[in-house]
Protein backbone atom coordinates (compact mmCIF):
# COMPACT_ATOMS: atom_id res chain seq x y z
CA UNK A 1 0.00 0.00 0.00
CA UNK A 2 2.61 2.56 0.95
CA UNK A 3 6.37 2.40 0.53
CA UNK A 4 8.04 1.76 3.83
CA UNK A 5 11.79 2.11 4.15
CA UNK A 6 13.39 -1.27 4.54
CA UNK A 7 15.94 -2.16 7.11
CA UNK A 8 19.12 -2.96 5.20
CA UNK A 9 21.37 -3.81 8.09
CA UNK A 10 20.77 -3.65 11.80
CA UNK A 11 23.94 -2.50 13.51
CA UNK A 12 22.83 -2.51 17.16
CA UNK A 13 23.97 -5.49 19.18
CA UNK A 14 21.47 -7.41 21.24
CA UNK A 15 21.87 -6.63 24.91
CA UNK A 16 20.57 -8.29 28.02
CA UNK A 17 16.88 -8.46 28.92
CA UNK A 18 15.26 -5.22 29.97
CA UNK A 19 17.33 -3.02 27.70
CA UNK A 20 15.52 -0.75 25.32
CA UNK A 21 17.01 0.88 22.22
CA UNK A 22 15.12 3.94 21.09
CA UNK A 23 15.64 6.47 18.32
CA UNK A 24 15.57 10.17 19.01
CA UNK A 25 15.16 11.98 15.72
CA UNK A 26 16.01 12.75 13.00
CA UNK A 27 12.70 14.60 13.13
CA UNK A 28 12.30 15.67 16.73
CA UNK A 29 11.25 18.99 18.19
CA UNK A 30 14.10 19.11 20.67
CA UNK A 31 17.16 18.10 18.69
CA UNK A 32 17.54 21.53 17.06
CA UNK A 33 17.95 20.18 13.62
CA UNK A 34 18.31 16.72 12.20
CA UNK A 35 20.35 14.74 14.69
CA UNK A 36 19.69 11.05 15.11
CA UNK A 37 20.57 9.67 18.53
CA UNK A 38 20.37 5.95 19.18
CA UNK A 39 19.91 5.71 22.93
CA UNK A 40 20.25 2.45 24.83
CA UNK A 41 18.20 2.59 28.00
CA UNK A 42 17.91 0.42 31.04
CA UNK A 43 14.62 1.56 32.51
CA UNK A 44 15.12 5.30 32.52
CA UNK A 45 18.89 5.31 32.88
CA UNK A 46 21.00 5.87 29.81
CA UNK A 47 23.65 3.27 29.11
CA UNK A 48 25.02 4.42 25.75
CA UNK A 49 24.34 7.19 23.27
CA UNK A 50 25.43 6.96 19.68
CA UNK A 51 24.97 9.97 17.40
CA UNK A 52 24.27 9.29 13.74
CA UNK A 53 25.10 12.29 11.62
CA UNK A 54 24.82 13.09 7.96
CA UNK A 55 21.15 14.00 7.58
CA UNK A 56 22.10 17.49 6.39
CA UNK A 57 25.47 16.73 4.79
CA UNK A 58 25.54 19.09 1.85
CA UNK A 59 29.08 18.30 0.65
CA UNK A 60 30.22 21.86 1.20
CA UNK A 61 33.94 21.11 1.22
CA UNK A 62 33.78 19.46 -2.20
CA UNK A 63 31.61 22.23 -3.58
CA UNK A 64 33.99 24.96 -2.42
CA UNK A 65 36.79 23.47 -4.52
CA UNK A 66 35.05 24.90 -7.57
CA UNK A 67 34.11 28.34 -6.15
CA UNK A 68 36.33 31.41 -6.31
CA UNK A 69 37.60 33.25 -3.26
CA UNK A 70 34.81 35.80 -3.40
CA UNK A 71 32.11 33.18 -3.84
CA UNK A 72 32.84 30.69 -1.10
CA UNK A 73 32.00 33.16 1.67
CA UNK A 74 28.23 32.83 1.16
CA UNK A 75 28.39 29.12 1.91
CA UNK A 76 29.77 29.67 5.39
CA UNK A 77 26.75 31.82 6.25
CA UNK A 78 24.61 28.77 5.78
CA UNK A 79 26.70 26.40 7.84
CA UNK A 80 26.26 27.94 11.27
CA UNK A 81 23.43 30.23 10.35
CA UNK A 82 23.09 31.76 13.80
CA UNK A 83 26.57 33.30 13.72
CA UNK A 84 26.67 34.08 10.02
CA UNK A 85 28.62 37.35 10.33
CA UNK A 86 31.31 35.73 12.43
CA UNK A 87 31.81 32.90 9.94
CA UNK A 88 32.04 35.41 7.11
CA UNK A 89 34.62 37.39 9.10
CA UNK A 90 36.80 34.27 9.38
CA UNK A 91 36.83 33.76 5.62
CA UNK A 92 37.43 37.44 4.87
CA UNK A 93 40.30 37.62 7.38
CA UNK A 94 41.91 34.55 5.82
CA UNK A 95 41.84 36.00 2.32
CA UNK A 96 43.18 39.32 3.62
CA UNK A 97 45.98 37.53 5.45
CA UNK A 98 46.93 35.57 2.36
CA UNK A 99 46.87 38.49 -0.05
CA UNK A 100 48.12 41.20 2.36
CA UNK A 101 45.07 43.45 1.92
CA UNK A 102 44.69 46.50 4.20
CA UNK A 103 41.36 46.82 5.98
CA UNK A 104 40.36 50.40 6.87
CA UNK A 105 39.55 51.12 10.51
CA UNK A 106 35.93 52.03 9.89
CA UNK A 107 35.33 48.60 8.43
CA UNK A 108 37.01 46.94 11.40
CA UNK A 109 34.77 48.77 13.87
CA UNK A 110 31.64 47.89 11.89
CA UNK A 111 32.71 44.25 11.70
CA UNK A 112 33.22 43.96 15.45
CA UNK A 113 29.90 45.62 16.27
CA UNK A 114 28.03 43.31 13.89
CA UNK A 115 29.86 40.27 15.29
CA UNK A 116 28.83 41.11 18.82
CA UNK A 117 25.23 41.77 17.80
CA UNK A 118 25.20 38.37 16.10
CA UNK A 119 26.55 36.76 19.24
CA UNK A 120 23.75 38.29 21.32
CA UNK A 121 21.11 37.20 18.78
CA UNK A 122 22.45 33.65 18.79
CA UNK A 123 22.43 33.44 22.59
CA UNK A 124 18.89 34.83 22.68
CA UNK A 125 17.66 32.11 20.37
CA UNK A 126 19.55 29.49 22.36
CA UNK A 127 17.85 30.72 25.54
CA UNK A 128 14.40 30.52 24.01
CA UNK A 129 14.92 27.11 22.48
CA UNK A 130 16.51 25.60 25.58
CA UNK A 131 13.77 26.81 27.86
CA UNK A 132 11.21 25.37 25.43
CA UNK A 133 12.93 21.98 25.56
CA UNK A 134 12.63 21.94 29.31
CA UNK A 135 8.93 22.74 29.06
CA UNK A 136 8.86 26.51 29.62
CA UNK A 137 7.17 28.20 26.67
CA UNK A 138 7.25 31.82 27.80
CA UNK A 139 10.99 32.64 27.52
CA UNK A 140 10.80 31.70 23.83
CA UNK A 141 8.61 34.70 23.05
CA UNK A 142 10.60 37.05 25.25
CA UNK A 143 13.85 35.99 23.58
CA UNK A 144 12.44 36.51 20.11
CA UNK A 145 11.31 40.00 21.05
CA UNK A 146 14.96 41.02 21.49
CA UNK A 147 16.10 39.01 18.52
CA UNK A 148 13.61 40.76 16.25
CA UNK A 149 15.11 44.11 17.23
CA UNK A 150 18.53 42.87 16.17
CA UNK A 151 17.30 41.42 12.88
CA UNK A 152 15.64 44.77 12.13
CA UNK A 153 19.00 46.50 12.53
CA UNK A 154 20.64 43.86 10.31
CA UNK A 155 17.96 44.25 7.68
CA UNK A 156 18.42 48.01 7.43
CA UNK A 157 22.19 47.77 7.03
CA UNK A 158 22.83 44.44 5.32
CA UNK A 159 19.62 43.78 3.42
CA UNK A 160 18.79 40.36 4.84
CA UNK A 161 17.63 38.96 8.15
CA UNK A 162 19.46 35.68 8.54
CA UNK A 163 22.10 34.98 5.91
CA UNK A 164 23.71 38.29 5.12
CA UNK A 165 26.70 38.39 2.80
CA UNK A 166 27.87 41.75 3.99
CA UNK A 167 31.47 41.13 5.04
CA UNK A 168 33.81 40.79 2.06
CA UNK A 169 37.61 40.54 1.74
CA UNK A 170 38.82 44.07 2.33
CA UNK A 171 36.05 45.35 4.56
CA UNK A 172 32.30 45.50 4.25
CA UNK A 173 30.15 45.66 1.17
CA UNK A 174 28.31 48.98 1.66
CA UNK A 175 28.36 51.70 4.26
CA UNK A 176 26.12 51.42 7.30
CA UNK A 177 22.58 52.78 7.38
CA UNK A 178 22.40 56.40 8.69
CA UNK A 179 20.21 55.35 11.62
CA UNK A 180 22.47 52.45 12.63
CA UNK A 181 23.90 54.10 15.72
CA UNK A 182 20.55 55.34 17.07
CA UNK A 183 18.94 51.96 16.60
CA UNK A 184 21.78 50.10 18.29
CA UNK A 185 21.67 52.48 21.24
CA UNK A 186 17.91 51.98 21.55
CA UNK A 187 18.46 48.24 21.51
CA UNK A 188 21.10 48.43 24.25
CA UNK A 189 18.75 50.48 26.42
CA UNK A 190 15.92 47.98 26.02
CA UNK A 191 18.18 44.98 26.56
CA UNK A 192 19.48 46.31 29.86
CA UNK A 193 15.95 46.82 31.15
CA UNK A 194 14.70 43.45 30.05
CA UNK A 195 17.59 41.22 31.06
CA UNK A 196 16.31 41.27 34.63
CA UNK A 197 13.18 39.55 33.30
CA UNK A 198 15.29 36.55 32.29
CA UNK A 199 16.88 36.53 35.71
CA UNK A 200 13.55 36.37 37.48
CA UNK A 201 11.85 34.01 35.10
CA UNK A 202 14.53 31.43 34.37
CA UNK A 203 17.70 31.79 36.40
CA UNK A 204 16.11 32.07 39.82
CA UNK A 205 13.46 29.49 39.05
CA UNK A 206 13.71 26.58 41.47
CA UNK A 207 12.55 24.02 38.91
CA UNK A 208 15.08 25.15 36.33
CA UNK A 209 17.89 25.10 38.86
CA UNK A 210 17.13 21.60 40.09
CA UNK A 211 16.94 20.35 36.51
CA UNK A 212 20.28 21.78 35.51
CA UNK A 213 22.53 21.81 38.58
CA UNK A 214 24.79 18.79 38.74
CA UNK A 215 23.57 17.50 35.38
CA UNK A 216 25.93 16.66 32.53
CA UNK A 217 29.19 17.32 34.30
CA UNK A 218 32.29 17.70 32.11
CA UNK A 219 35.62 17.87 33.89
CA UNK A 220 38.45 20.14 32.80
CA UNK A 221 40.71 17.38 31.47
CA UNK A 222 37.89 15.85 29.52
CA UNK A 223 36.94 19.18 28.00
CA UNK A 224 40.48 19.66 26.70
CA UNK A 225 40.84 16.09 25.51
CA UNK A 226 37.54 16.13 23.62
CA UNK A 227 38.50 19.38 21.93
CA UNK A 228 35.56 21.36 23.31
CA UNK A 229 35.69 25.10 22.83
CA UNK A 230 33.44 28.03 23.51
CA UNK A 231 31.01 28.25 26.42
CA UNK A 232 31.12 24.47 26.90
CA UNK A 233 34.82 24.54 27.72
CA UNK A 234 34.72 27.85 29.57
CA UNK A 235 32.12 26.41 31.96
CA UNK A 236 34.61 23.67 32.86
CA UNK A 237 37.41 26.08 33.63
CA UNK A 238 39.34 26.12 30.32
CA UNK A 239 40.38 29.56 29.13
CA UNK A 240 40.03 29.38 25.37
CA UNK A 241 38.57 32.62 24.02
CA UNK A 242 40.18 33.33 20.65
CA UNK A 243 39.34 37.01 21.06
CA UNK A 244 41.88 37.08 23.90
CA UNK A 245 44.46 34.56 22.68
CA UNK A 246 44.83 35.71 19.06
CA UNK A 247 42.88 38.95 18.67
CA UNK A 248 41.72 40.07 15.23
CA UNK A 249 40.15 43.35 14.00
CA UNK A 250 39.85 45.77 16.94
CA UNK A 251 39.43 43.24 19.75
CA UNK A 252 42.78 44.22 21.21
CA UNK A 253 41.51 47.76 21.80
CA UNK A 254 38.35 46.97 23.76
CA UNK A 255 38.05 45.87 27.36
CA UNK A 256 35.98 42.85 28.21
CA UNK A 257 36.21 39.90 30.59
CA UNK A 258 36.46 36.28 29.62
CA UNK A 259 33.71 34.52 31.54
CA UNK A 260 34.94 31.33 33.21
CA UNK A 261 33.06 29.05 35.60
CA UNK A 262 34.43 25.92 37.21
CA UNK A 263 31.43 23.73 37.99
CA UNK A 264 31.22 22.11 34.55
CA UNK A 265 27.52 21.27 34.78
CA UNK A 266 24.58 22.51 32.72
CA UNK A 267 23.85 25.42 35.02
CA UNK A 268 27.44 26.67 34.64
CA UNK A 269 27.12 26.57 30.83
CA UNK A 270 23.88 28.50 31.10
CA UNK A 271 25.44 31.18 33.33
CA UNK A 272 28.45 31.53 31.01
CA UNK A 273 26.22 32.39 28.08
CA UNK A 274 24.08 34.85 30.02
CA UNK A 275 27.19 36.65 31.27
CA UNK A 276 28.68 36.62 27.77
CA UNK A 277 25.67 38.53 26.52
CA UNK A 278 26.41 41.23 29.08
CA UNK A 279 30.05 41.34 28.01
CA UNK A 280 29.01 41.75 24.38
CA UNK A 281 26.86 44.73 25.36
CA UNK A 282 29.91 46.19 27.08
CA UNK A 283 31.99 45.83 23.90
CA UNK A 284 29.33 47.45 21.73
CA UNK A 285 28.98 50.38 24.14
CA UNK A 286 32.69 51.10 23.89
CA UNK A 287 32.65 51.13 20.10
CA UNK A 288 29.32 52.51 18.97
CA UNK A 289 30.06 56.18 19.54
CA UNK A 290 33.54 56.25 18.09
CA UNK A 291 33.22 54.69 14.65
CA UNK A 292 35.90 56.53 12.66
CA UNK A 293 35.18 58.17 9.32
CA UNK A 294 36.80 56.83 6.21
CA UNK A 295 36.49 54.17 3.59
CA UNK A 296 34.47 51.06 4.25
CA UNK A 297 36.42 48.72 1.98
CA UNK A 298 40.11 48.45 1.11
CA UNK A 299 41.56 48.29 -2.38
CA UNK A 300 41.41 44.80 -3.84
CA UNK A 301 41.90 43.40 -7.29
CA UNK A 302 38.84 42.17 -9.15
CA UNK A 303 40.02 38.57 -9.36
CA UNK A 304 41.47 37.27 -6.10
CA UNK A 305 44.22 34.65 -6.17
CA UNK A 306 45.81 33.41 -3.02
CA UNK A 307 49.55 32.64 -3.32
CA UNK A 308 50.76 29.06 -3.11
CA UNK A 309 50.77 27.81 0.47
CA UNK A 310 48.57 27.03 3.44
CA UNK A 311 46.58 29.44 5.60
CA UNK A 312 44.58 29.01 8.79
CA UNK A 313 42.31 31.51 10.55
CA UNK A 314 40.58 31.07 13.90
CA UNK A 315 37.66 33.12 15.20
CA UNK A 316 35.35 32.87 18.19
CA UNK A 317 31.74 32.23 17.19
CA UNK A 318 28.82 31.94 19.56
CA UNK A 319 29.41 28.20 19.79
CA UNK A 320 33.17 28.00 20.05
CA UNK A 321 36.25 28.17 17.90
CA UNK A 322 35.64 28.15 14.15
CA UNK A 323 38.62 27.54 11.89
CA UNK A 324 39.09 27.87 8.14
CA UNK A 325 42.06 26.04 6.60
CA UNK A 326 42.88 26.64 2.93
CA UNK A 327 45.55 24.90 0.88
CA UNK A 328 46.11 26.91 -2.25
CA UNK A 329 47.99 26.11 -5.45
CA UNK A 330 48.03 29.70 -6.69
CA UNK A 331 44.83 29.57 -8.76
CA UNK A 332 41.47 31.27 -8.41
CA UNK A 333 39.87 28.32 -6.58
CA UNK A 334 41.26 26.57 -3.50
CA UNK A 335 42.83 23.14 -3.72
CA UNK A 336 41.39 22.03 -0.38
CA UNK A 337 39.23 23.78 2.21
CA UNK A 338 38.59 22.42 5.65
CA UNK A 339 36.15 24.02 8.07
CA UNK A 340 36.86 23.20 11.69
CA UNK A 341 33.43 23.51 13.23
CA UNK A 342 32.91 23.88 16.98
CA UNK A 343 29.84 21.66 17.15
CA UNK A 344 31.67 18.59 15.83
CA UNK A 345 34.01 18.41 18.81
CA UNK A 346 31.37 19.49 21.32
CA UNK A 347 29.09 16.68 20.18
CA UNK A 348 31.75 14.03 20.70
CA UNK A 349 31.65 14.84 24.41
CA UNK A 350 27.89 14.24 24.64
CA UNK A 351 27.98 10.49 25.14
CA UNK A 352 30.63 10.86 27.81
CA UNK A 353 28.59 13.50 29.64
CA UNK A 354 25.22 11.82 29.55
CA UNK A 355 26.00 8.20 30.35
CA UNK A 356 24.52 7.13 33.62
CA UNK A 357 21.96 9.90 33.85
CA UNK A 358 18.26 9.81 33.23
CA UNK A 359 16.65 10.58 29.92
CA UNK A 360 15.14 13.80 31.24
CA UNK A 361 18.65 15.02 32.01
CA UNK A 362 19.66 14.35 28.42
CA UNK A 363 17.40 17.19 27.31
CA UNK A 364 19.03 19.63 29.70
CA UNK A 365 22.53 18.55 28.62
CA UNK A 366 21.81 18.79 24.92
CA UNK A 367 20.11 22.11 25.34
CA UNK A 368 23.12 23.66 27.01
CA UNK A 369 25.55 22.25 24.44
CA UNK A 370 23.92 24.55 21.87
CA UNK A 371 24.40 22.42 18.77
CA UNK A 372 23.53 23.58 15.29
CA UNK A 373 23.50 20.47 13.15
CA UNK A 374 24.35 21.91 9.70
CA UNK A 375 27.55 23.18 11.33
CA UNK A 376 28.46 19.62 12.32
CA UNK A 377 27.62 17.88 9.06
CA UNK A 378 28.80 20.63 6.74
Amino acid at each position, binding site marked *: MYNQTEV*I*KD*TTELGPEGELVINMGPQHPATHGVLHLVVTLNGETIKKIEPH*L*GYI*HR*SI*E*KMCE*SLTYRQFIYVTSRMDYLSSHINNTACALLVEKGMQIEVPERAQYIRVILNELTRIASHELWLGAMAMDLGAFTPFFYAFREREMITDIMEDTCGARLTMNYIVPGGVMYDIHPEFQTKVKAFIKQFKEKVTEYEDLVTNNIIFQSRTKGVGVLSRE*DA*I*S*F*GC*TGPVARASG*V*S*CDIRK*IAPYDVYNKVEFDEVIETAGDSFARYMVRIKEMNQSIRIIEQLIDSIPEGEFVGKTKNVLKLPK*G*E*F*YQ*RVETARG*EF*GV*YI*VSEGGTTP*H*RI*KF*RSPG*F*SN*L*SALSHMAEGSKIGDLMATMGTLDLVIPDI*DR
Partner: protein
Amino acid sequence: MTNEEIKEYISSHAPSAIYDETGEWLNITIEATEWKKLAATIKEEPFQMDFLFCLTCIDWKTHLTMVYHLTSTILRHQLVIKANLNIDLPEINTVSNVWRTAEFHEREVFEMFGIQFLNHPDLRKLILEDDFKGYPLRKDFEDPINMIKL
Protein backbone atom coordinates in the same frame (compact mmCIF):
# COMPACT_ATOMS: atom_id res chain seq x y z
CA MET B 1 59.48 27.38 23.65
CA THR B 2 61.42 28.73 20.71
CA ASN B 3 61.55 27.10 17.33
CA GLU B 4 65.16 25.98 17.81
CA GLU B 5 64.37 24.11 21.02
CA ILE B 6 61.38 22.46 19.36
CA LYS B 7 63.44 21.37 16.37
CA GLU B 8 66.17 19.89 18.55
CA TYR B 9 63.73 17.96 20.68
CA ILE B 10 61.73 16.59 17.76
CA SER B 11 64.84 15.53 15.85
CA SER B 12 66.00 13.53 18.81
CA HIS B 13 62.72 11.60 18.88
CA ALA B 14 61.89 11.43 15.17
CA PRO B 15 65.14 11.69 13.21
CA SER B 16 63.58 11.98 9.79
CA ALA B 17 61.68 15.22 10.47
CA ILE B 18 61.71 18.02 7.90
CA TYR B 19 60.98 21.59 9.02
CA ASP B 20 59.20 24.37 7.18
CA GLU B 21 58.98 27.83 8.70
CA THR B 22 57.51 29.80 5.82
CA GLY B 23 53.93 29.84 7.15
CA GLU B 24 52.38 31.27 10.29
CA TRP B 25 53.33 28.28 12.47
CA LEU B 26 56.17 25.75 12.45
CA ASN B 27 55.36 22.84 10.09
CA ILE B 28 56.99 19.46 10.76
CA THR B 29 56.81 16.60 8.26
CA ILE B 30 57.48 13.16 9.72
CA GLU B 31 57.20 9.54 8.64
CA ALA B 32 53.86 7.86 9.26
CA THR B 33 55.45 5.09 11.28
CA GLU B 34 56.95 7.46 13.86
CA TRP B 35 53.68 9.22 14.63
CA LYS B 36 52.51 6.91 17.41
CA LYS B 37 55.56 7.43 19.57
CA LEU B 38 55.83 11.14 18.85
CA ALA B 39 52.19 11.83 19.71
CA ALA B 40 52.52 10.35 23.17
CA THR B 41 55.69 12.39 23.77
CA ILE B 42 54.33 15.73 22.64
CA LYS B 43 51.37 15.56 24.97
CA GLU B 44 53.61 15.47 28.04
CA GLU B 45 56.46 17.73 29.15
CA PRO B 46 58.04 19.85 27.84
CA PHE B 47 55.57 20.73 25.10
CA GLN B 48 52.27 19.95 26.86
CA MET B 49 50.32 19.95 23.60
CA ASP B 50 47.04 18.90 25.05
CA PHE B 51 44.63 20.40 22.49
CA LEU B 52 44.27 18.96 19.00
CA PHE B 53 42.14 21.45 17.17
CA CYS B 54 42.18 20.31 13.55
CA LEU B 55 42.76 16.97 11.88
CA THR B 56 42.46 16.70 8.13
CA CYS B 57 43.92 15.28 4.94
CA ILE B 58 44.97 16.70 1.58
CA ASP B 59 44.95 14.82 -1.72
CA TRP B 60 47.89 15.64 -3.97
CA LYS B 61 47.03 13.04 -6.66
CA THR B 62 50.37 11.27 -6.22
CA HIS B 63 50.22 10.92 -2.47
CA LEU B 64 48.04 11.89 0.51
CA THR B 65 49.11 14.11 3.40
CA MET B 66 47.65 13.96 6.91
CA VAL B 67 47.73 17.29 8.77
CA TYR B 68 47.43 17.72 12.54
CA HIS B 69 47.13 21.17 14.15
CA LEU B 70 48.05 21.20 17.84
CA THR B 71 48.18 23.85 20.53
CA SER B 72 48.85 24.01 24.22
CA THR B 73 46.42 25.57 26.67
CA ILE B 74 49.25 26.15 29.15
CA LEU B 75 52.14 27.43 27.05
CA ARG B 76 50.06 28.91 24.21
CA HIS B 77 52.17 27.83 21.26
CA GLN B 78 50.96 26.13 18.08
CA LEU B 79 52.46 23.36 15.97
CA VAL B 80 51.50 21.71 12.69
CA ILE B 81 52.53 18.10 12.04
CA LYS B 82 52.19 16.44 8.66
CA ALA B 83 52.71 12.90 7.44
CA ASN B 84 52.81 11.72 3.84
CA LEU B 85 50.96 8.56 2.97
CA ASN B 86 51.05 6.19 0.02
CA ILE B 87 47.94 6.56 -2.12
CA ASP B 88 47.55 2.83 -2.78
CA LEU B 89 47.65 1.71 0.83
CA PRO B 90 47.18 4.69 3.16
CA GLU B 91 47.58 3.70 6.80
CA ILE B 92 48.57 5.58 9.90
CA ASN B 93 48.30 4.99 13.60
CA THR B 94 45.36 6.49 15.45
CA VAL B 95 45.78 9.13 18.13
CA SER B 96 42.38 8.72 19.75
CA ASN B 97 44.03 7.24 22.83
CA VAL B 98 46.02 10.47 23.28
CA TRP B 99 43.44 13.11 22.30
CA ARG B 100 39.86 11.86 22.44
CA THR B 101 38.65 14.42 19.93
CA ALA B 102 40.36 12.36 17.22
CA GLU B 103 37.71 9.64 17.41
CA PHE B 104 35.17 11.57 15.38
CA HIS B 105 37.70 13.41 13.20
CA GLU B 106 39.42 10.18 12.12
CA ARG B 107 36.12 8.52 11.30
CA GLU B 108 35.33 11.43 9.01
CA VAL B 109 38.74 11.30 7.27
CA PHE B 110 38.33 7.53 6.85
CA GLU B 111 35.07 7.83 5.00
CA MET B 112 36.09 10.83 2.90
CA PHE B 113 39.59 9.72 1.86
CA GLY B 114 39.81 6.03 2.62
CA ILE B 115 42.68 6.15 5.10
CA GLN B 116 42.89 3.21 7.51
CA PHE B 117 43.61 4.22 11.09
CA LEU B 118 45.29 1.34 12.91
CA ASN B 119 43.95 0.48 16.38
CA HIS B 120 41.00 2.87 16.18
CA PRO B 121 38.24 1.70 18.59
CA ASP B 122 35.33 2.12 16.19
CA LEU B 123 36.20 2.90 12.56
CA ARG B 124 33.07 3.14 10.43
CA LYS B 125 31.15 5.71 8.44
CA LEU B 126 29.96 8.77 10.29
CA ILE B 127 28.42 11.26 7.90
CA LEU B 128 27.80 9.43 4.63
CA GLU B 129 25.24 6.69 4.13
CA ASP B 130 26.29 3.17 5.05
CA ASP B 131 26.26 1.91 1.49
CA PHE B 132 28.03 4.86 -0.14
CA LYS B 133 30.63 3.76 -2.69
CA GLY B 134 33.82 5.66 -3.21
CA TYR B 135 35.76 8.31 -1.32
CA PRO B 136 34.19 11.68 -2.10
CA LEU B 137 36.92 14.16 -1.27
CA ARG B 138 39.57 12.47 -3.38
CA LYS B 139 40.34 14.26 -6.62
CA ASP B 140 39.47 11.24 -8.77
CA PHE B 141 35.94 10.86 -7.40
CA GLU B 142 33.34 10.82 -10.19
CA ASP B 143 29.60 10.74 -9.65
CA PRO B 144 27.83 11.46 -12.94
CA ILE B 145 24.33 10.94 -11.50
CA ASN B 146 24.38 13.39 -8.60
CA MET B 147 27.09 15.90 -9.40
CA ILE B 148 25.99 18.50 -11.93
CA LYS B 149 29.03 20.38 -13.15
CA LEU B 150 28.80 24.07 -13.84
